[in-house]
């Protein structure tokens, strides 16, 4: 495998980088939807994650990569091992980032009958799929707007429940599959079904920067990386390490952070002003603000965190006329100014 372009060397695209890092701080934020044109570092940012994020501890030999401390939320194999009184050995491994290619079949995603054992021994056994490999990591779907609808449904269901239930071809298996779904797409090439949009925790819009200096810097870094991937990566290793430490320090803080009533009220007012349906918007807003506060090392969640995260948490939840050209981002900005002051 080739060296991945370092995360910290990505020029600009701050909102996207922040959204992705916040899911590393708090994986329960829900997935991230990245909408934008080609060549805006979407894939680069996601593929840089395994090298960036702190390695995770897994149960040795567990084919789902269970967390030894997850208790009842481990897979059936690990629980059976425990019951049998076997000692659990652990090992460290990189956070998985699994690519789900367009045209992947359902078998491939959820897992299927183990062909070898079926053919050679006539046994029915389960061969885990992509969802199992993505457990505790990221499942990345490039061009999610072109993915078949039934697969998108399936992904969102599993992402929401954290469990993959397989009932097919005479197999009956369930295993934990808690992952952050990162979908990216170019809205010019087809829209994502509106019903699915608000199931993503955060959404970001990325555009190719038009700032010449920034573009030049993008090209020069890319060029430097192409010419000497190892040297370039080494040059950015410190910056990557600093981000990793920030994520590591933020994680334990998330649950301890309190959200003052003032912030809760502001969040509710913001959602009312924008007219989001249901409570998903408010939840995403508060969780996002909390993860951001933890990431920033703040003592408690403040209005600034709310203000920063509002566009990402809410822009895909607007009830909008599809033909309305007024950008969602502009509408959120207006509501934020109205509710929180300029």
């Amino acid at each position, binding site marked *: 495998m080739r060296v991945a372009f370092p995360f910290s060397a990505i020029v600009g695209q701050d909102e996207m980088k922040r959204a992705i890092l916040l899911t590393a701080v708090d994986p329960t934020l829900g997935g991230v939807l990245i909408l934008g044109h080609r060549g805006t570092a979407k894939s680069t940012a996601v593929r840089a994650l395994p090298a960036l994020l702190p390695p995770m501890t897994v149960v040795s030999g567990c084919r789902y990569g269970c967390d030894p401390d997850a208790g009842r939320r481990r897979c059936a194999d690990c629980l059976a091992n425990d019951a049998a009184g076997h000692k659990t050995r652990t090992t460290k491994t990189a956070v998985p980032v699994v690519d789900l290619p367009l045209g992947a079949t359902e078998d491939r995603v959820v897992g299927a009958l183990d*062909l070898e054992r079926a053919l050679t021994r006539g046994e029915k056994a389960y061969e885990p799929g992509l969802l199992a490999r993505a457990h505790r990591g990221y499942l990345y779907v490039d061009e999610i707007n072109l993915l078949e609808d039934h697969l998108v449904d399936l992904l969102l269901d599993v992402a929401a429940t954290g469990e993959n239930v397989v009932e097919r071809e005479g197999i009956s298996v369930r295993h934990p599959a808690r992952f952050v779904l990162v979908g990216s797409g170019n809205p*010019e090439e087809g829209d994502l079904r509106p019903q699915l949009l608000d199931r993503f925790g955060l959404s970001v819009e990325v555009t190719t920067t038009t700032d*010449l200096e920034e573009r030049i810097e993008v090209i020069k870094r890319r060029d430097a990386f192409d010419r000497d991937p190892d040297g370039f990566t080494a040059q950015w290793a410190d910056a990557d390490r600093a981000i990793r430490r920030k994520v590591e320090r933020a994680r334990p803080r998330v649950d301890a952070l309190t959200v003052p009533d003032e912030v809760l009220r502001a969040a509710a007012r913001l959602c009312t002003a924008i007219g989001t349906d249901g409570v998903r918007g408010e939840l995403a807003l508060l969780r996002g603000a909390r993860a951001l506060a933890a990431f920033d090392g703040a003592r408690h969640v403040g209005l600034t965190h709310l203000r920063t995260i509002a566009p990402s948490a809410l822009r895909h939840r607007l009830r909008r006329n599809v033909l309305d050209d007024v950008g969602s981002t502009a509408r959120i900005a207006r509501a934020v100014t109205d509710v929180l002051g300029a």
Partner: protein
Amino acid sequence: MSVEGSTPVLDGTQRAALAAALVALDPVAFGGVVLRSPRADRATAWIAHLTALRPERSPVGRLPISIGDDRLLGGLDLAMTLATGRPVAERGLLARHDGGLLVLPCAERAGETLVARLAAVLDTHVAVPRGPFAGEPADARIGLIALDESEPEDEPIHAALADRLAFHLTLDVEDDTPYLTREEIDAAARRWHTIEMTHAQVATLVATAELLGVASVRALSFAVRTARGRAALDGRTHTSDDDCAAAAALVLGPRATRRPPATDNATESPPPPPPPSADAEPPPSDSSETPSADEVKALEEMLIQAALATLPMGLTMSAPAAAPRAGRSSGRAGMDRAGGRRGRQVGTRRGDPRAGGRLDLLETLRAAAPWQRLRPAPAGARERVRIQVRPDDFRIRRLVEPTGTTAIFVVDASGSAALNRMAEAKGAVELLLADAYSRRDEVALIAFRGTTADVLLAPTRAIAAAKRALAALPGGGGTPLASAIDRARELADRARRDGNDTIVVFLTDARANIARDGTPGRPAAEADATASATLLRQLGGTTLLIDTSTRPSTTAQALATAMGARYVALPRTDAQSIHAAVTAVRPTSS
């Protein structure tokens, strides 16, 4: 300022030779080529030249667009698996051509699945087999030569693929430039990573891309590599301005989406965005010299001149905002609907899974089971084989894909229609578009005025694009109704062959006055329109004609009858009722 005499606009054969040399130099860094060739033998000759420049035993192969995943990326070798009784993986085409070149004929017809696979391999240089026991990921560092054999009216090659191939080359002239030798390429390949390029040169390439409307950062990376590669081929250690011009011509020009502001007449030209000044020291600058603003501007003009030679067809005349071909970004023509490889399973049938079908394992085993006692164990089998499966047992899944609907709007933008109810017609189409969005239909838009009918928007699900196309629709001119009906029939025919239901909605007053050949004259125009309408009716599908004239006209009613369309008179209706009328005739699917 003048750059006369110094503009090294490469001619077609020089471009072809340089592209071949650069792909030979490093196929992986450049991804490959989109090759258009009016004559097939020129493409063959170019590929032969390129192959001759590659190292002795570097593999070259063909990649048929119908290739299945297991053949492409690696998969289970069924024969060996059955012979040995344990899974045997077979390497895919990509892995077998690691370090080599693959030729993709009819690239514009490659389906989305194949395009996605190739894009991933061009990005990661690794082929990851799909499916259980298909084998381990394998290196697949390939250069791809995509032969774009599309006609002007076809969908262009998929943007995701084109973006990843550095050069978009049209072989429109006889090839007589001497190509370099393999030794020269080898020497350059050893050093090309060390070629230095100045900050000003990078900055000017970026600024030029901006002027040409090239947004892709990948394209800029290719341009930088092209400049460096050319310097290496030339035996220099630093890139020259000519190298940058060559990069602009080879990489940026063919990707242009707009014509740059006029540069040949300095007095009129609006100042292009200021090139980065060297004194406002930009982030880590490794440029050794400090070029003056004039020098930078001169270089920029030179690059623009170079790129102008290779602008896409649609941009060579004066500047519409979006080139018809460059604007399309997603090819749907090749979607595997007809192939039946996706969708809901409706049963199984006997068949060979290597032909592209998906094996239904349980049914296969079930089919094999009754014969087990009759089948002797394979000779030499060390352990008893539990289940023997013979080719006859293979069952593959029968899949159906839910068909979608393609709504084709044909809008009369002629003078008479513009006078009448153009605004209402647009309003109605907008309502229908919103409706199409929630149903996930595809929509297409054809407008006719003057002497021609144009497909403003090929079938797409991007409704916002449809709305923009509609809003920008100008009015005025003649009514070339026959051509409009013909265009609609072509689109409908294609959509139906893709397995979609079609609904064609005409918004016109039916006062045809331009015949099919573009000549004015009402009688001939009406006869042509009726003839076209009859052909449309024979195609089948749902058709609706909305009469936009001030009073219901017999001409429009007659035309509706000829094309088998339901007739709705607009004068008595508004946008809402048109919407209701279309919804009423919509095919019952989805």
